[in-house]
Each structure stands twice: as C-alpha cells, then as structure tokens.
C-alpha cells in the first residue's frame, strides 16, 4: 500500500483523483443519454396513445347523437284494412284463441305499413312539396314500419287515431344532417335524391328532425336493413357471458395450477416439460386457439356454433397461460424469509401457502388476472373461427344462444359498406369497449389498493 503522506503518495493521490474526475464526465454523459432515451421513448408512447384516443374520440362521439324524426302518424283505416283484433269469446279454447290472434297478426304484417310512414312524413312536409314515395321513404329508417306495426299490434284501438311518434331518421339522413356528406357533390354521387335532401333541410328547420342521444346503440342489436337502429346490446351481452365464463374457469384453474407447480410439484423432468409448455402456450397466436376451439368444442363436444359458451371456453384456454405465468411470477417473488418464518413456526406447506404466501401475492395475482380477462375480452380472431361473427339479430338470453362479442362487432361494423355511417358507429363501439376495459381496470386498482391497505 502507498502511504498518502509521503510526497510520492500525495502525487499518486492527485493522479487518482484526476482519473476519477475524467471518468466522471463520461459517466454523467452516459447517464444523461440514457435518461434522454427513456424520456423520448415515453413521450413517443404517450404521443401515439394520444393520437389514437383523439382519433377514436373525434370519430366516435358524434355517433352518440342521432337524428330523430318527430312525426304525427295516422293509423288510417283505409290503409290498415283488417278486421278488429280477435277478442276471446266464451267457450273458446286456448289454442283456438291463439290461432285466431296469430292469424290476425299475420294479416296486420301483410299490410303495407310504409304507406303509414309515408303519410306521416308527407304530413310534416310543406303542402305541395314534390317528392315521390320511394324518395320520401329514404328519410326515415327502414324499421319505421315495424315500429308503427308493433304499436298497432300492442294497441289495436289506435285505429283511426293520429298520435305523435318519434322515429329514427335513416342513416343517410343522419349523415346529411351531421354534415358528413359533401353538399357540392352532383346528384349522381349522392345517396339521397335531391327532393329528399331538400326535405331533410326543411325538416331540420321546422323541428321535425332533431338530434337526440343515440340510445339505440345501447338498447338495440345489430341491424343490416336499418343501420341507424344498429346497436351493441347483443354483442355486449355476448362479451359479458364470455367474461363470466373466463372468470369462473380460468381464474380458479390458473391460480390453482400455478400454486401447485410453484409450491408443491416435485422438480422433475415432467414438471420442467409442463413449465416449458405453459410458457410456449402463452406465445401461441390466438387464432390457433380458435381452431382448437372449433375442433374440440364445436365438432367434438357439439356445442352450438356462435355460442358465448364456446367462445368463453376458447378464451379461457387462451387466458390460462397468462394467469399461470403471472401467478407463478408473483409466488416466486415472495421472500424466502417469509417462507422460512412460516415453516419454522411449524406451519405445514399448505398453511404456509394459504396463510402467508397467498395473502402477500394476492394483489398482484388479482391485477394479473384482470389484465388477462381484459385481454380475452378484446380478443377477436379466435371468435371468428367459432362463428361468432355471424349476424345475430337478437340479444342472447343464455350462454348457449347465438351471439357476437364487442370486438367482433367492431370488426363487422368497420367492414360495413355504409362507410359514412358505420365509421362513426365503429368508433363508438370502440369507445364502449374501451369504457368496459377502463371499468375493469379501475375495479382492479380499487381492489388492489383496498387489499394492500388492509395487509
């Protein structure tokens, strides 16, 4: 060792300090560079997210309002030319009565309800406005006739009366009112005829058309014939069923497998093999799980096509590796000191796991699980392979009914040929899906902070 107090020692010390100082500049430079890269990466990531969100918001928010028609509909006996609704007579059997009313309903359905729609539209138009039947009907959504017919079937006493009704304007009319259509385009390129466009402008001025909140997005199922009435209710229920199935199956199976593999399984070739395979499963493209689901659940177990049950099972398979890996990671992170403390007190292995290890890992297991479930909810590809992209015109009541899912609905809508209208609907659906995800994550964060505070 050199002695610092001797002259040579002091020189060596000065030399040493100089070297450290030289190196220091380089070290600080490296640190500044690294920090700069990190910051730039974060700014870029946030920038992309911001662009994505603004785009979706700008496109999607207008879809939450929709053009409505406020009309006076007359249930004109001249058009509604059916006998009175059958009334149950004394001594008539149940079956007879049902047959009679079904017959009457069929007669009602065979009537040309478009005439009622047309009459009520004309009633709102200025006197003498020139427009033909086909053109004027393009102002209201095509389901208007069903809405009026339903009203009449439910209340036959409406015959001969004139009442106020709110009907959806057609998708094209909605676009015209929202200014999504270039007014300068020639007639040949317009989807609405010139008289129809003029009439819509008049309606907008005299208050027959107004913008209202688009409840149909939340209450209606998808519709192709009447795009303005297309909604997410069916897809939402489909997704909800699948989420419940995934939570009920993937969470207990995944967490239990992880606990077994991590805490109890003897280290052997077999467990190593299982571990490698689980890790690989997590990297398998989701569409492959769809193929597997189609082969196993649909072809072999004969589950109905397009059913949320089949979809939920496929998503469960897909989510399992994620949950197992995340749970194992959390278990591995528990300090050996805690395990020793528990075992040293004479706790059995099971007691150690359930009394000490799981409580401290619970928040991270929960977070991982919810992220896994959220991922599954956003999955589209495997669902396409088990037929969940079928057009379903009713809200599924059980997990065995046909259904679509939110992401599949987004996929279907964005491919719809009525681009002008469905671009906004697609973004609106994305917003609903994102809202659902944010809700799930918020629940995760809430539970997590709750549990962490309690621990």
């Amino acid at each position, binding site marked *: 060792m050199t002695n610092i107090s001797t002259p040579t020692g002091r020189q060596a010390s000065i030399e040493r300090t100089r070297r450290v100082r030289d190196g220091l500049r380089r070290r600080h430079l490296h640190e500044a560079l690294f920090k700069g890269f990190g910051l730039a990466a974060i700014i870029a990531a946030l920038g992309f997210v911001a662009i994505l969100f603004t785009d979706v918001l700008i496109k999607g928010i207008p879809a939450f309002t929709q053009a409505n028609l406020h009309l006076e509909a007359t249930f004109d006996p001249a058009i509604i030319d059916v006998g009175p609704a059958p009334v149950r007579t004394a001594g008539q059997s149940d079956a007879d009565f049902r047959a009679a009313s079904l017959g009457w309903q069929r007669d009602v359905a065979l009537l040309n309800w478009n005439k009622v729609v047309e009459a009520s539209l004309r009633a709102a138009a200025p006197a003498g406005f020139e427009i033909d039947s086909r053109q004027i009907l393009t102002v209201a959504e095509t389901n208007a006739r069903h809405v009026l017919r339903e009203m009449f079937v439910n209340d036959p006493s409406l015959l001969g009366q004139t009442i106020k009704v709110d009907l959806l304007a057609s998708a094209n009319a909605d676009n015209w009112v929202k200014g999504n259509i270039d007014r300068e385009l020639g007639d040949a390129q317009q989807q609405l005829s010139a008289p129809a466009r003029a009439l819509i402008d008049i309606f907008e001025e005299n208050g027959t058309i107004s913008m209202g909140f688009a409840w149909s997005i939340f209450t209606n199922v998808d519709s192709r014939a009447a795009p303005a009435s297309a909604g997410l209710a069916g897809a939402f229920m489909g997704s909800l069923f699948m989420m419940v199935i995934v939570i009920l199956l993937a969470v207990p199976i995944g967490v239990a497998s992880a606990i077994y593999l991590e805490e109890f399984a003897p*280290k052997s070739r077999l467990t190593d093999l299982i571990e490698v395979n689980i890790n690989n499963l997590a990297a398998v493209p989701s569409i492959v799980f769809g193929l597997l689901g189609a082969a196993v659940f649909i072809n072999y177990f004969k589950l109905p096509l397009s059913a949320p049950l089949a979809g939920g099972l496929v998503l469960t398979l897909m989510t399992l590796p994620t949950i197992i890996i995340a749970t194992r990671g959390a278990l591995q992170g528990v*300090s050996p*000191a*805690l*395990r*020793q*403390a*528990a*075992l*040293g*007190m*004479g*706790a*059995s292995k099971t*007691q150690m796991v359930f*009394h*000490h290890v799981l*409580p*401290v890992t619970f928040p991270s297991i929960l977070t991982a699980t919810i992220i896994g479930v959220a991922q599954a909810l956003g999955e589209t590809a495997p669902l396409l392979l088990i037929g969940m992209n079928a057009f379903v015109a009713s809200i599924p009541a059980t997990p065995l009914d046909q259904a679509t899912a939110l992401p599949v609905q987004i996929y279907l809508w964005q491919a719809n040929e009525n681009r002008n209208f469905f671009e906004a609907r697609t973004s609106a659906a994305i917003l609903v899906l994102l809202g659902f995800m944010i809700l799930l994550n918020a629940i995760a964060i809430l539970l997590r902070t709750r549990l962490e505070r309690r*621990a």
Partner: protein
Amino acid sequence: MDMLAGKVKMTQQSVNNGMNPTDMLERPIRLHAKDVTVHYGAKQALFGISIDIPDRAVTSFIGPSGCGKSTFLRCINRMNDTIEGAKVRGLIELDGEDIYDPALDVVELRARIGMVFQKPNPFPKSIYENVAYGPKIHGLARSKSDLDEIVVSSLRKAGLFEEVKDRLNEPGTGLSGGQQQRLCIARAIAVGPEVILMDEPCSALDPIATAIIEELIDELRENFTIVIVTHSMQQAARVSQKTAFFHLGKLIEEGVTEDIFTNPVNKQTQDYIMGRIG
C-alpha cells in the same frame, strides 16, 4: 490482531455467567447428535458431527464463515428438508427420540423446536397476529382469552410487551430491527417449545439492541434449551455455558464455555479465538 486477542482476554472475566461449569455438565442431555453429515448436492458441508446439548442452558456454535454452523442448526429442526438437494445422514435425538424417524411429523417437531433467524422476519401482519399465529395453527388456545393471555405472556417473556402494548394491532414490520427480533423470539416462545434455535440473532442489530437480546437469552435459559450461532466470541462468552467450535464442516472442539475460551485444547480453536482464523 493483538488487539482482538486482548479484547477476548478482557471478556474472559465475564465468562461463567452465573452457572458453575460442573453444574452445567450434570444437566440432562436434551439433544443428542451422532455422526451427522450433510451434503448439498455433491458438496459435503458437514462431516460426522457428534455433540450433546444440555437441557436449559445456552449452547453456542462458533467458527469461521462457511464452516457449517447454520447447516447443523437447520438439521436440528429439519429446516434442511426445505432446501432443494440437501441430504442429512446420521442420528439426531430429542429426548431420546429420533427426529428423522419417518413416523415423526415435522410440523410437530417444529412446534417443539422453535427457530429465530439471522434477519428479523416477522410476518407482514399485526404484532398480535405474529405472536398468535403459532398457538393458532397448533391449536394451543381454547378460547380468545386463552390466546390473548398467551400473546401477552410471550411478549412479556420476550421483554417487548411494555413497548408495544398500545399498538398490538399495528404491523410487526413497523417495529425497529431489535424490536422485530424480539417479536420473532416472542413468536417462537408462544408455542411453548422445548428448544429454541437462534442463527446469529444479533448480527443485524446495533450494540444496544444486541445487549437487550443477550440479556433476554440469559433469562430464557431458565425455561428453554437454547442453541445459538454467533460470530461474536464475546457474545458466545457472555451468553453461553457450552461452546462448540466448528471448522470446515467438522466439529473441532466442544466443552464448557469457560474452558474453550481460557484453555482450548485444539490448536485450531486457539487460533480462532486469538483471531488468527477468520
């Protein structure tokens, strides 16, 4: 180097802490080990250890780092079972009963032989829960008031009660290092073990906390058989009545603490005590 030897010499006056050596040797044997060897995989860590540990006295294991003190301590409550690849051979008896007998339940054994670790490791639960945990899992308390009593008396015995009596429901991890270690001791004695193993219980503590724990160990000796691993020869001299010196996986010398420190027979023991092996 000479300074250290001087220090040891100074403490030699404090050796023989209230128990006279012959008294100690007459005590019944609680633990008996014969030809204990341990392998970690292919590596042999202990070579034929044979030792008797007397009832209600403090026995200390000393020796340079890596000589196998912790390994041997972990054989006594079978904590080595939890280490992947560890293989223990030989005989260890607690009151004449083979603790490696396949018919014996490890869980029961660990209720009879408690352990305090080098780094304080209270459960991330309340102070009360920490102490109550052992009695709960072993079913020692018949009622809530029983349990309360065990918790309070264990905390008292560990000399911690006065400091924590107003915050029994606060997390045990919020205590100071020394308090945490006493909490771990309270947790161990709450089960009413016969033997308490301590692996360098003071190595993470400051001198004052160390002194408090040493005093505590001295008190506990009346009711428990204590085995302590320590790197501090002064500590071994202060708290233990019997000392065993390990070196390179072998038990070199064992005997009454006073004899080992004042009159070591073996040259290696002498070197270690003089600070020449470290």
